[in-house]
């Protein structure tokens, strides 16, 4: 017994030295680098179906039967008990943004302690973490409006009153984010030197274009002078939404966008244009359309400013069930489709909206028409389809698949011999399985890489990285901000027209003057605003940006409460098929501008206000 007694002091002391603790993360460059990866790991996949709040919802809608957190989100099934895509707590498909911010803060606090790194590298890494911290705050503000700002980490044993944080005013949030980005930008690299290993890391163009996006958002009607939330006040910080409109916010946004464009140009970026292979004879339409498609699907093309490298973009779930009549397997699922609401956005071939074009039969758009040889690059020759599929701009054909539509690529690279889709009942692309068909009759073609091939039993996908920011987006941000600050101006037209030129369209002024029923629309700030908004919705369609734009423009209430329309999918006969059918009725209430915070949090932290209206 005494033997045991003697040893008892040590007997229970069994933990050896060198058990990993958080300090181990900052004792060497290699572990610090892993911690930096950790900071990046919280970036959301904006193109991921179960997780992205903005991919699905109005530009693309899901099959009813197919449930995920993001479909629940867009169907208006948001709730306060267990919110879907909860970025506050990291639940229900959401990412824990506050955990992300805490890790960024840990990194920023400790990176200077790492012994075997140069000061420049430490500064550069710290700036990346600062950028991420700012970006995570921005994502929270997009979702929740005013938020508690986590400038520094609170210690674990901090007293309860201190950890019960409050929402801070919108303006404080945006200025904190901007200040953080301003601290980071000077120390970030212009380009990534080691592309093989580091593409995807934050650069000066990324940080500056996100800054432009942040400032445009801050200047937009939802956040700038929004008088809908006059009574939404916090006991500590008072009014959380500044009710006074400040046009100077647009100036800051315009300048930031201009600076970002300059730096992107300096880094060698330009709008992507498709260059056919040697000996490949393609029509102009195909080349233009491929330019549009590959601006998204070609990895690291010349206009990608920031691509999300955490995962490759979703393609199988969006691909039509098949374009090859002889092959039919579950590699392609095609259970998401754009509604007519989205299809109607695309211009006519003259570059103006379909309801404004003097040369386009808007009222006869549901009539049937047989494709002729002239249409053969867009519609299967001899195939009968709706008149509205004819004479549209190339971005329509590049972005959207439809019944009778030509689908270039996917193993057939001669545009005189291409796949096409047959979506009416009985057609090889029609609905045959309970959970693998488009709910509307359209497919988001733009997101499908043209190199993907349907094999005998599998679908081989050429992966790409989802573009969080590309040059066309930035150009349009500039055009919007400049118009808001200056009214119609050369700068806005210049960048709008650059985007339209790549899409094979004439400039705004020419197009409207010659083809629109409202030929002077672009001469007023309001008119040009509408043009820019539609241009943006078309150019960036399916890229998970539309929701955020509609929200910040305060257009969501009108746009998102329209019924989502598709075709009558059960019909074989074209005349019966092309009847407008309500696929989904979504309601959008005022409160849906901001997502609710889980009630659990409000109960536990009474200082925290619930989101307005919830």
């Amino acid at each position: 017994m005494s033997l045991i007694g003697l040893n008892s002091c040590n007997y229970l002391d069994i933990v050896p030295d060198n058990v990993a603790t958080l300090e181990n993360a900052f004792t060497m460059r290699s572990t610090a680098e892993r911690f930096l990866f950790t900071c990046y790991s919280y970036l959301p996949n904006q193109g991921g179906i179960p997780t992205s709040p903005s991919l699905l919802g109005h530009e693309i809608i899901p099959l009813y039967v197919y449930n995920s957190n993001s479909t629940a989100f867009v169907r208006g099934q948001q709730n306060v008990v267990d919110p879907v895509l909860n970025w506050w707590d990291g639940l229900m498909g959401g990412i824990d943004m506050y955990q992300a911010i805490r890790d960024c803060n840990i990194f920023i606090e400790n990176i200077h302690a790492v012994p075997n790194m140069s000061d420049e590298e430490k500064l550069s890494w710290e700036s990346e973490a600062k950028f991420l911290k700012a970006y995570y705050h921005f994502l929270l503000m997009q979702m929740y409006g005013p938020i508690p700002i986590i400038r520094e980490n609170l210690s674990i044993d901090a007293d309860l009153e201190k950890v019960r944080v409050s929402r801070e005013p919108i303006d404080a949030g945006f200025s904190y984010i901007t200040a953080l980005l301003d601290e980071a930008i000077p120390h970030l690299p212009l380009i990534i030197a080691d592309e093989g290993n580091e593409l995807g890391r934050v650069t000066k163009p990324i940080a500056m274009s996100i800054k432009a996006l942040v400032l445009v958002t801050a200047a937009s009607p939802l956040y700038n002078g929004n008088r809908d939330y006059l009574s939404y006040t916090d006991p500590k910080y008072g009014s959380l939404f500044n009710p006074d409109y400040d046009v100077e916010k647009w100036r800051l946004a315009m300048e930031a966008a201009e600076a970002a464009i300059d730096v992107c140009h300096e880094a060698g970026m330009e709008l992507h244009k498709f260059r056919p292979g040697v000996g490949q004879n393609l029509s102009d339409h195909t080349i233009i359309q491929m330019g549009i498609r590959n601006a998204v699907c070609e990895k690291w093309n010349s206009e990608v400013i920031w691509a999300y490298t955490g995962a490759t973009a979703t393609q199988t779930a969006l691909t039509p069930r098949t374009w090859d009549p002889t092959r039919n397997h579950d590699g392609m699922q095609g259970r998401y489709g754009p509604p007519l609401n989205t299809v109607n956005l695309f211009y006519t071939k003259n570059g103006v909206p379909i309801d404004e074009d003097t040369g386009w039969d808007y009222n006869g758009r549901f009539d049937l028409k047989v494709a002729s040889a002239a249409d053969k690059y867009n519609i299967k020759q001899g195939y009968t389809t709706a008149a509205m599929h004819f004479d549209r701009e190339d971005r329509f054909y590049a972005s959207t698949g439809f019944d009778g539509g030509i689908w270039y690529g996917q193993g057939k690279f001669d545009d005189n011999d291409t796949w096409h889709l047959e979506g009416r009942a009985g057609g090889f692309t029609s609905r045959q399985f309970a959970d693998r068909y488009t709910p509307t009759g359209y497919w988001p073609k733009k997101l499908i890489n043209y190199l993907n091939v349907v094999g005998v039993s599998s679908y081989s996908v050429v992966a790409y990285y989802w573009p969080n920011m590309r040059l066309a987006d930035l150009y349009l941000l500039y055009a919007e901000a400049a118009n808001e600050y200056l009214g119609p101006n050369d700068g806005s037209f210049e960048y709008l027209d650059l985007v339209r030129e790549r899409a094979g369209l004439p400039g705004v002024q020419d197009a409207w003057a010659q083809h629109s029923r409202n030929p002077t629309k672009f001469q007023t700030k309001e008119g040009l605003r509408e043009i820019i908004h539609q241009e943006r919705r078309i150019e960036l369609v399916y890229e998970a940006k539309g929701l955020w734009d509609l929200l910040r423009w305060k257009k969501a209430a009108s746009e998102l409460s329209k019924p989502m329309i598709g075709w009558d999918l059960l019909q074989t006969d074209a005349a019966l098929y092309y009847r407008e059918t309500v696929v989904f009725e979504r309601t959008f209430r005022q409160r849906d501008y901001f997502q609710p915070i889980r009630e659990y949090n409000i109960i536990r932290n009474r200082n925290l206000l619930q989101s307005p209206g919830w």
Partner: protein
Amino acid sequence: MNYIIDCKGVYTRNIHILQYSRFKILIRMKLLFILLLFIVQANANLKSQTITLEFTDTPLEKVLGEVKKQSGYSYIANTKLLKEAKKVTVRVSNAELDETLRTIFQDQPLYAEVSNGMIYVKSRRRRNDNTKTSAHPSLHVLLQMAVQGKVTDTLGVALTGISVLQKGRSAQATSTDLNGRYVIDVPGDAVLVFSMVGYETQELPVNGKSQLNVVMKASTSQLDDVVVVGFGRQKRTDMIGSVVSVKPEQLKVPSSNLTTALAGRVAGMIAFQRSGEPGMDNADFFIRGVTTFGYKVDPLILIDNVEVTTTDLARLQVDDIADFSIMKDATATAVYGARGANGVILITTKEGKEGPANISVRIENSVSTPTSNVELADPVTYMKMANEAILTRDPLGFLPFSQSKIERTVPGSGSLEYPSTDWRKELIQEYTMNQRVNLSVSGGGQVARYFVSGALNQDNGVLKVDRRSNFNNNIDLKTYSLRSNVNVNLSPTTEFIVRLNGSFDDYSGPIDGGNKVYRDIMRTNPALFAPYYPSEGEYNWVKHTMFGNFGTGGYLNPYADMVKGYREYSRSMMLAQLELKQNLSFLTEGLSLRGMANTTRNSYFSVRRQYNPFYYQFMGLGPSGEPNYYLINENQGTEYLDYAEGDKTVSSIFYMEAALSYNRTFSDKHAFSGMLVNILRNQLNGNAGDLQLSLPFRNLGVSGRFTYAYDSRYYAEFNFGYNGSERFHESNRFGFFPSVGLAWSASNEKFWENIKPVVSNLRIRGTYGLVGNDAIGSPRDRFFYLSNVNMNSTDRSYTFGRDGGNSKEGISVTRYSNPDIMWETSYKTNIALEVGLFNRLQITADYFNETRKNILMVREDIPTTMGLSADISANVGEAKGEGIDLSMNYSRNFSNSLWIQGLFNFTYATSVFKVYEEPLYDEPWMTRVGYPISIRRGFIAERLFVDDEEVANSPQQHFGEVRGGDIKYMDINGDGQITELDMAPLGYPEIPEINYGVGLSAGYKGFDASVFLQGLARESFWIDPKATAPFRRYLYSDEVFAPGTILQNQVIKAYADSYWSEENRDVYALWPRLSPEGGNANNEQYSTWFMRDGTFLRLKQVELGYTLPQHVIKRINAQRLRVYFNGTNLLTWSKFKLWDVEMAGNGLGYPVQRVFNIGAQLSF
């Protein structure tokens, strides 16, 4: 004192071994065991030897030397005594040892006593000087005299090992030998006490007689029993703490799982069984309910003082059990310190008794069949409802079944074109047969005694086997166990015990277990395809089974999944234990020392072998009526087996204890006992998966018990445990857990004598004390005082590079350090009343209450905006439990050999939260404080919504889509919304508060019969609204399916009979508006809609037995042969009819079994 110690070599050798370190003992254990086996054998030879002597005037020492040589018996004698001895003249030939010794000592002032393989030489007048002659009037009774005699049972069979002692002088004691004989040296007026467990103790006055033969009666009451308590034994009549001992034969059920026998058998135990799958059918059991909200809520289980798992208990053979005790209150468990807070089950296994080999065999064969099966809707109803589920939610939805298909499908037609598959019939047999064999041999001589047993159980599942493959995919669980307990007397005062025990499971069964087969049947489409198609006609070249499937082959085909392969596992538990008991009476009377070392090795591994099934879709009939099939997955299917390795776990446990105890009664009235024990435990797990988890689990402690009893009337007891656990920071590592108890036996008072014939026993006892629990948080939280950082977290990985070539894992904190965390402590009070009436009815009633403090819980008030990646916990919770245990035993023997026994056990245990960290709610029903721990919280369902308009005009329900026919919840706080704040505690707790059992048995001549009913009450459970939702895709939390697998719940017939539809808007229908595969989150909330009453009473066991008369079995040289028939789970009374109510929420799993069993027990 100076002793001549003359003994065999082995004794001396062991003395040396004692001086070795304990670790060395362990190393040599194997050797020793071989040695001990040898001794047993040698001892067996001794019995037949006789002695031949011829000496004239020879010194006694020399004569005894010769006796030793011939008999092998050593002797011990005081040297002074031997000098007093006269010279010996003796002539015997072929005499027994007893006779020889009697002759040798005929005229000596000494006498010899044989006990435990030793010859003790003692003085006949040794004590005369001490006797207070003046106090006694008559001289002759004062003289020490040798009393001898024979002890037999009522049948005249000599009893070995009966303890014989002089009343009031426990030091003067002996026990009967192999022939039932004893010799004891006592004063002529002494009273001799004859006792042995299982027999009624007898007290007989000597009255100067030198011959005293005794007939022992088998005891019927437990009053005389000795009860195994922590690190020792106590007489039942002296007990202060609350300890229940269960007779092992009561635990005998036709199952190879002992835990299933516990329900209703023990006052103070809550037990229930949720699954009937062989190998997975352990019952849940809790002592006095659950009074904590940590992970470890079940009791500490000890077999021969060594901590074991529930599975080890499950595999224990009832026939091996000597004592089964359950310790419930602080006094009983305090000695277990930081481990005993949830109660302790302490089992000791049998030991050999001196005597010829006693062989006992038990053979059983049982038929087992589910107590009930969930009834399903037929395929036609299924298809109609499947279409309706789509249309009622999405009028544009894709209908899975065409009208013509629905019309042409005929259930049970076997049609290929319009299949209707009864999956359960295809997969499950009606019944299965199981066998159990158990053999034990015990016996021994004076030096060594042995108990060896072996058991083999064969359990089979009820799954069907595919005749086309040669492997068995049905559950085939063989459990073997082997036990060898050997006791060796190294000297008259030293006993050495070796226990070896192995338990082994060999399992072969379906890939994912039997439970999954049942679950899969519940989510397979019955109207799309057959389980398999015959390989006939143009397909007769096909070597593999043509399994049915549809579309792209993603549908679940549970038949294919069941027969496509098998999983094997092998589990073994080996235990080797060495114990040494040293009587230290030579230092001071009543002192003894005991040391024990044990090592337990567990190992487990599993292997899966399977092929990938080929799936065929039926494509219609050809021109001549031959079927055409399309091979769906030509590339994925395989005709050969693939192999996957499963879990491998190994662990090694070392345990040791050393105890010093003292037990003495002074002046006949003051009985003292004391015990100090030091324990040490070390467990190492292989394949732990984490650095911190790989570190040893350790426990260290000193415990003690001190009792005092005055005149068998007043009793006091003090216990303590001082324990340390490696999980806590140095400053909190050790804890002190004291307890005290007092008792009064009123029936032993003088004034009670008149009442005694009626109230034969009345005793009141009470205890109060502390016990701890160091198994808090979760088993993965090893060291609360250390942070745990995952330096290679795949959850936090990220990728960079042109082609994603640079991928690195991230860093995440999985626990923040907190040096203040310590064990939870339980403050227990127990007050008990024991009443015995007419010596036939024993009633014990306990009231207990317990306050559990320092319960580890997650700090609820740290908002998520802190961004912590792991929860912060602290010892802030408190819970309170209280309740009543009641047990009644009735026993009566009638003169015409009719006997009756009855028992009734009742347990009522509740527990509530006392301190629970939670926000300050405005809604009183939101707080947990004051509500039972295992109560479920949810919404109060009013009814179903009449229509969409009512939904629009009702408080908003925040769970996704709500329409007419969906469940309407009550807005308790009236804020116009149904949110978390409208959740209230619902029904009764999920762990039943009442558990009871009633048993009655009777016998007449060779026949015996018994009935046992068991029930529980005050329990609520929930029908799982996700797992049972028609057409829903539901995965249980632990499951993984291949991507693209289509899971669609079947329709439970009761739902098909009563659900809300647009045509039949029954707002009180059993099932709300149908939903397609995604389910409906609104209806899946926990609510009163799916709450059910778990109360039931069941006829748990009926047994009929017949013991063949002696004259019949004599012919086969047997001692006893009993044949019996019994059945379990024969009848159940409950309000709930969908499935066996005992399975509660797990109703779609492998059902609890009804067993009919026939067995025979034979002993030689």
